[in-house]
C-alpha cells in the first residue's frame, strides 16, 4: 500500500517535471541527492562527482518524461539510484587507474538501456554546445536571446545597439547560417 502511494506520488512529480515545474524538480532533487551522494562517496568519489552524476541522471529522467510513452515501472528513488550507479560504474571504468573498482559495483544494474539512449542525445548536446561557443560573440548571445530566451528582435536590436530590428534580423540570419555550418559539419560525421 505504502509503495503504491509512493509510486503515485512519484508519478505526480514526474508530470510536474515534464511540464517544467520548478517545484517538482526541487523536490526530486533534494529528496534523492543525499542517497546518491552517499553511494558515490562510498565508492571513492567526490562531492563534485556526485553532483555531476546525479544531474546527468536527472537529465536522463527529464528526456524520458518528455516522451509521452514513458511510464515509471519502479520507484523514482530506485530508478535514479540505479542510473547513478551505472553512470558511476562507466565513469570509474573510464578512469580505471584513478579509482579502484569495488566488487559490489560491478554487479549488473538494469539501467543500461536508459543510459545508452541518453548517450546519443548527450553527444548532440555537446556538438551544439561547441558550435555555439565557436561562433563567438555577439552571434552566440543573439541566437540564445532569440531562440532560447524568446526575446523579440526589437529588444535584441536595442541591447546590441543596432539601428533597427531589420538590421538585427539580418545579423541573426548570418549567425544562424554560421551555426548551421558548424553544427552540421560535426553532426554529419556522427
Amino acid at each position, binding site marked *: 500500500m505504502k509503495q503504491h502511494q509512493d509510486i503515485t506520488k512519484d508519478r505526480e512529480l514526474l508530470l510536474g517535471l515534464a511540464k517544467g515545474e520548478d517545484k517538482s524538480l526541487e523536490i526530486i532533487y*533534494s529528496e534523492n*541527492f543525499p542517497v546518491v551522494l552517499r553511494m558515490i562517496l562510498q565508492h571513492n568519489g567526490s562531492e563534485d562527482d556526485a553532483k555531476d552524476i546525479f544531474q546527468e541522471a536527472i537529465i536522463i529522467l527529464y528526456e524520458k518524461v518528455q516522451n509521452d510513452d514513458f511510464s515509471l515501472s519502479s520507484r523514482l528513488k530506485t530508478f535514479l539510484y540505479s542510473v547513478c550507479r551505472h553512470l558511476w560504474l562507466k565513469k570509474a571504468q573510464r578512469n580505471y587507474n584513478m579509482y579502484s573498482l569495488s566488487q559490489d559495483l560491478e554487479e549488473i544494474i538494469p539501467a543500461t538501456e536508459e543510459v545508452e539512449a541518453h548517450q546519443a542525445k548527450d553527444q548532440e548536446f555537446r556538438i551544439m554546445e561547441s558550435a555555439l561557443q565557436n561562433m563567438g560573440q555577439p552571434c552566440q548571445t543573439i541566437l540564445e536571446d532569440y531562440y532560447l530566451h524568446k526575446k523579440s528582435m526589437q529588444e535584441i536590436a536595442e541591447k546590441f545597439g543596432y539601428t533597427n530590428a531589420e538590421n538585427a534580423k539580418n545579423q541573426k540570419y548570418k549567425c544562424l547560417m554560421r551555426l548551421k555550418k558548424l553544427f552540421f559539419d560535426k553532426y554529419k560525421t556522427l
Partner: protein
Amino acid sequence: MKDDMILLHEIERYLEGEMSEAERIAFDELRRTNPIIDQQVAEHQLLLQQLEQFGNRKNLQAKMDAIHNNLDIPQLRNQAQAENQLAKRLTIRRRTITNLAAAACIALVTSLSTIAVMQHEAKKKSTAQYEDVRRVLNNIQRSQNVLINDFNNKRRAPANPGTYGGTGFAVSGNGYIVTNCHVVAGADSVYVLNNKGEAYKAVSVFEDISSDLAILKIADSSFKGQPLPYSLKSQNLKLGEEVFTLGFPRDEVVYGKGYISAKTGFNGDTTAYQVSIPVNPGNSGAPLLDSKGEVVGIVTGKQTTSDGIAFAVKSAHLKHLLDEMPKDKQVRKDLSHKNHLEGLNRVDQIKKLEEFVYMIKVYN
C-alpha cells in the same frame, strides 16, 4: 550570400507559419521541385529542434545548479560519511565474528577429536594385547533333520550349536565344574558336553569377575557323579616346570604341552601364571596340569601381540575361591584327596582325565 539569407528568412517564415496561404502553396511547390531547398528546410528544422533541446537542457541545468547551491552540502556530506562508516564498521564486525566463530568451531572439533582418538588409543593399547579365548561357534551348521532327531534323544544338547564355546573341568564328583567367567557371561542357558557326547544342562552358581572364574553346577538329574582322579595343587609352580592342558578349541578334545614361563600373569597379575603353550579360542577354562597330573591352573586368555603366550589362573586362587563360596553351594572337598594320576605316563593320564573335561556351550 544575400540569396541564402533571403532563403533562410523564407524558410523561417514558412516554419513559423507567417506566410500567407498563397505564399505557402508556392513554397510547398518549390520544396517539391527543388530537393536542395527541401533539404535546407529539413536541416533548418533539425537545427532549431536541437537548439531548443539545448536550451531546455541548459535551463534545466541552471535550475539544478540553483537547487544544488541551496542544499546544505557539508551537512549532507557529514551525514553520508557517518552512515558509510557505520555500515563499514558493521560489515567488518560481522566478518570478524564469522571468522572467529569458524575458527572456534575448528579448534573445538580438533581438540575433541584429538582427545577421543587419544583415549581410544590408550584403551586399545591394553585390551589389544589380551584376548579371551572363548570360541565363537558360528561355523557349525545343522540340518532340519538333526533338529527333529533331537526330540528323540534327550541326552544331546539342543540342535542350535550355541553361540559361544569354552572348556571346563570338574572340581567335584557331584557335578561342579569350573570355567571362565567370560565364557558364560550373558548366557541364557549353558550346556556341558563330555567326551562321550552326553550333554547336561548346567547353571552358573558362582562368578568371580576379577579372576575371571565361574563355577557351574550340572542341573540334570540324569548326571551321575564319580570320584575325581586328580587333585588341586596349592603350592605355586616353579619357573620352567612342564605343564599340559586339555581343551575344546574345536569339537574334539585337544591336548597341548608347554611350560611355566613367568610367575605372574597379564600386567603383573599375581593370581595367574604366564604359560608358554599353544592356546586357541575355545581353550578358555581348560585345566592346566603338571607332569604328576595335579591341576595347577585354569587357562583364561592369551597375549595377542606375541605368539604362544597364554595366561592361567593359579590353582591356589581357585581353592581360595571354593572355600569362600556360600555354604549352601559348598563344593565337596573332593580335590584335596590323593592324586591318582601320579606315576602314570601321559597317554594314560589323558585317558583318565578326558572324562572330566567338558565342552561348555553357551546360548544367548
